[in-house]
């Protein structure tokens, strides 16, 4: 995720101090990974240098951390461009699991066993997410659903691979 664009987007509703920005970010997007103060200030100084934000005011007696930032017109345009640009879907072509399965087949180990163990690990994560979703608000539900659908896709692949192990074995050991 682009932290710079996210902080810029948060500034669109009005000027804020670095601390407020961090708090807003953590509340809305940082459930698992809250921002470090250092990240906020280094990002803001980059945005400042690029003319995407400006200093709207400095509180009396404050050091650099008491600066209040406002988004510039160029900043608004930048956010707009970022929002309108589709994210590139991840290719998911380098599967460690596929490599493990093939190696197991090549070395006459139990490949089904590897898939079973992986399924259990995936389901463990899915249980944690399902529980968090059940107790969480709508934002939590949507974030967890996103992760759950990805894990589910992995598992569907895993079931398909499990059903094709004999064929795969014939292919890789030929």
């Amino acid at each position: 995720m682009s932290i710079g664009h996210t902080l810029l987007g948060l500034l669109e509703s009005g000027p804020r101090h670095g601390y407020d920005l961090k708090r807003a970010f953590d509340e809305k997007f940082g459930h698992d990974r809250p921002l470090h103060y250092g990240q906020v200030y280094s990002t803001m100084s980059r945005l400042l240098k690029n003319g995407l934000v400006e200093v709207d005011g400095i509180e009396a007696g404050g050091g650099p951390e008491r600066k209040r930032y406002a988004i510039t017109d160029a900043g608004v345009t930048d956010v707009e461009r970022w929002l309108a640009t589709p994210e590139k879907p991840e290719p998911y072509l380098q599967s460690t699991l596929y490599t493990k399965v093939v190696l197991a087949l090549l070395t006459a180990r139990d490949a089904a066993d590897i898939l079973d163990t992986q399924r259990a690990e995936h389901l463990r994560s899915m249980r944690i997410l399902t529980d968090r979703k059940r107790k969480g608000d709508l934002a939590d539900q949507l974030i967890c659903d996103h992760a759950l659908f990805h894990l589910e896709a992995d598992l569907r692949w895993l079931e398909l691979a499990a059903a094709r192990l004999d064929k795969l074995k014939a292919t890789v050991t030929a």
Partner: protein
Amino acid sequence: MNAPGGSLLVAEDLKKAYGPTMALDGAAFSIHPGEVVAVMGPSGSGKSTLLHCLAGIVTPDSGSIRYDGQELATMNDARRSLLRRTEFGFVFQFGQLVPELTCVENVALPLRLNGTSRKQAERTALGWMERLEVDDLAKKRPGEVSGGQGQRVAVARSLVTSPRLIFADEPTGALDSLNGERVMELLTEAARSANAAVVLVTHEARVAAYSDREIVVRDGKSRDMERVV
């Protein structure tokens, strides 16, 4: 009293053949009171046969199934049937509600079959329908409610006798994902609060994620993943 080890239901070395096909080939299973266990596996792996054996609907060719310390095979038909009516609850994928009865009459049916008066049975039924958020459908017939609503009515019916063990066979198989998840939430919440155990047969990982643990059935053999990982 529970079976040794605190299990409510324990099955060992189950074998069941349909003609030349081994549907179960040494499958094992156990569940504790209040526990939700998912039974997963591909189509034709034997998971539904396992559920039918555990519920005493199908008799295995060999192996042991003990409910509350008692061997199912040693019970006569009347005793097994009583067990299914009073201690077990059932939720299936399709066609489980009686179309001629209203929803509240459907939910009350297991109690009526056990001899409870209509008034008392329907009062209890309505309490469960409230828990499943379908009490406003009490007077409607199954044909007049949506698939998701019908499934919640079926879940209410499975809970109405306060069973200790619920068998759910692909309970969300016919529902879209939002309705399916709501049914799973309500089913597992209601079961946990009543300390009822749930055997949940599913091929969907998102549904299995509502369980406490899973076993995997493949080629009639079972694998308890808790003991593996």
